[in-house]
């Protein structure tokens, strides 16, 4: 955590409205908030960890079918979304820096751009989901996955049952990730309102920092989801 404002923080202690009653000093409050977010992210790792575990077991069991199913999802859109999220992580870092250095306009701009990128991501995700609906690749009664060849095995076709397992995992994993994005957008909307009101100072901008941590985490989840779901056996 790049934070060198401890000295100024002590200075502002006497009249710092953001210092909650049960903390002795702003530094302690900041450390607590930051540790709290890191601990929360550890629980999130375990939350997605269960899904990754299920995914990896099935992928090992039914590799060919998973590769065939993976080929039907749109790699171009997935790659675009990866780029979008990486850019949004950059704007989050900018927002934190702007808050540290009291650049209010830059802070507000960065927050807005981050949210826009988040919305672009969700929009593209929606297009991908729509494609899957149209192609009857959504698990359930209308699921169909006939005669899809297994990559690298000419003449063999994927088992539709196993492909349905892949798509179940695809929708749950990307769906929960999207839910995290939506929650992130809510957090950033609140940050934006606070920034608009000029609440953040170089002494106190903890919400920007820990909101940023959350956003980065959600990005990192995607960085793992993208190769796992989109790039199975994609070599030409």
């Amino acid at each position, binding site marked *: 955590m790049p934070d060198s404002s401890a000295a100024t923080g002590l200075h502002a202690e006497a009249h710092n409205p953001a210092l909650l009653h049960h903390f002795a000093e702003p530094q302690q409050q900041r450390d607590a908030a930051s*540790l709290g977010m890191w601990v929360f992210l550890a629980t999130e790792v375990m939350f997605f960890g269960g899904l990754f575990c299920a995914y990896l077991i099935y992928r090992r069991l039914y590799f060919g079918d998973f590769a065939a199913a993976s080929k039907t999802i749109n790699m171009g859109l997935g790659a675009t979304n990866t780029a979008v999220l990486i850019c949004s992580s950059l704007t989050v870092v900018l927002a934190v820096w702007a808050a540290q250095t009291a650049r209010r306009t830059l802070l507000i701009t960065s927050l807005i751009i981050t949210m826009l990128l988040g919305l672009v991501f969700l929009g593209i995700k929606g297009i991908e989901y729509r494609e899957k609906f149209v192609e009857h690749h959504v698990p359930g009664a209308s699921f169909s996955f006939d005669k899809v060849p297994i990559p690298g095995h000419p003449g063999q076709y994927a088992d539709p049952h196993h492909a349905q397992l892949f798509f179940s995992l695809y929708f749950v994993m990307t769906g929960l990730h999207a839910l995290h994005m939506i929650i992130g957008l809510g957090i950033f909307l609140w940050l934006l309102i606070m920034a608009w009101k000029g609440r953040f100072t170089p002494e106190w901008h903890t919400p920007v920092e820990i909101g940023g941590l959350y956003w980065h985490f959600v990005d990192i989840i995607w960085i793992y989801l993208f190769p796992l779901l989109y790039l199975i056996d994609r070599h030409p």
Partner: protein
Amino acid sequence: MPQPERENYLNKHYGVWSWLLTTDHKRIALLYLISITFFFFIGGFFALLIRLELLTPAGDLVQADTYNKLFTMHGMVMVFFFLIPSIPAVLGNFLVPMMIGAKDLAFPRINLLSWYLYIIGGVMMLHCMLTGGVDTGWTFYAPFATNFTNTKIVEAALAIFVAGFSSILTGLNFVVTIHRMRAPGMTWSRLPLFIWAHYATSIIQLLGTPVIAVTIVLVACERALHLGIFDPKLGGDPLLFQHLFWFYSHPAVYIMILPAMGVVTEIIACFSRKRIFGYSFVAFSSIAIAVFGFLVWAHHMFVAGMSVYAALVFSLLSYAVAVPSAIKVFNWTATLYKGSIHYDAPMLYAFGFLGLFTIGGLTGLFLAALGINVHVTDTYFVVAHFHYIMVGGAVMGYLGGMHFWWPKISGKLYPEGWARLAALIVFIGFNLTFFPQFLLGYMGMPRRYYDYSHMPEFQILNVLSTAGATVLGVGYLLPMIYFLWSMRYGKPAPDNPWNAAGLEWKTPSPPPTFNFDEEPVVTWEAYNYEQLDAPSKEEVPVAR
């Protein structure tokens, strides 16, 4: 003494909203106390019906389907809505900040949020129960839960999901508080062992609960959205569900027992007037239990079709997890050795805990042994084993802690004579209920059967068990009655009725809203009873 006039956390504000919107950890602890007591009696009611059904070999009190729902709802309510929040959310909430000299938990509003999540989950669970309930057992095994049963799986799953977040947030609050909010001088090696136990518990809550959360989300998705994750028709693996489920639900046992171990450590040190023997061993054995506890889950699945090699490894690891528990038991008994022991009610519960937890733990080793496990799996032996841990261990610890800290919580003394009687009744009732179940299980009575008319020779032991459950029920009602009574009629408690060490006793009873009138500075080791007792040895610190 003008004690009644003193401003404290109970009389500072009045009115419903001062409670429902409070961020004071002590008030939230009381909110939890009321809510978990409510769920305890609901779960107990189901247990009573189960025991009544088993009084006779024929299935004559309830239908088979109803019986399935009864033991399912008993398990779900007791595990998720009583045992898991019991000590951490009530005693832990009240005591963690006080023991380390903090004004509150690190995130008071998140603490309140966690209580609301618990209540939302609880209301969903109540609604689920009143509109049909669930019949899968508390374990939700696929594919029965995902593809076959017609009961309210989705609603129960969501209720537990929400309650799980309440548990996660409590653990998060404790970890951050213990790391960041300790008073000056309160180093890690001076922490009360109650705090170490809660720290270890919180680690499990944080790392285990999300896994069951996502697992029951998958079950709910499978039922509601017709995805197929565990569906064998699609090539899905029901065993994967069991692995994910027990990855949390075995460590969850330690969520329930570790805080009780913390409570018992405090009580034993206080009532034998000695520093706890082997402080750092007791402290690190809590952490060891938290770590090893994550590596033994598959001993619940020895007969489910696992590879023999995996089963061997899990059997060995299950033996390993007994080592830190045994370290604790040995250290507690070594603490008692040559201590000046006082037999007050909290200590009676602690003694009960020691004996019953040891029996529960040793029978756990039976179950960890592959050969015996295959013989007694899914029999009453297993039921008896985990009730010795959950009820004989966790609930005994909880009641002992409630008695120990009740003067601090309420500012009133409970009636000691009644309390000792209740402790005795609980101990007798408990053993009468569950010891026969060991025998039943070893003789081969399967669990979850509502009708055993083809094996009527089991009736006598079942009658004993049901009789014991009635006694146990009386034993549980008594403390509730005299605690309530003492709030109105009890004698005012002094600040430190037990002459106990620990920061929570160095502040008035009940404590002021910010816990301490001035910030404490710690210059002594935990459990400095030799020092405490040195100046006035002739005075025996007993509250009557």
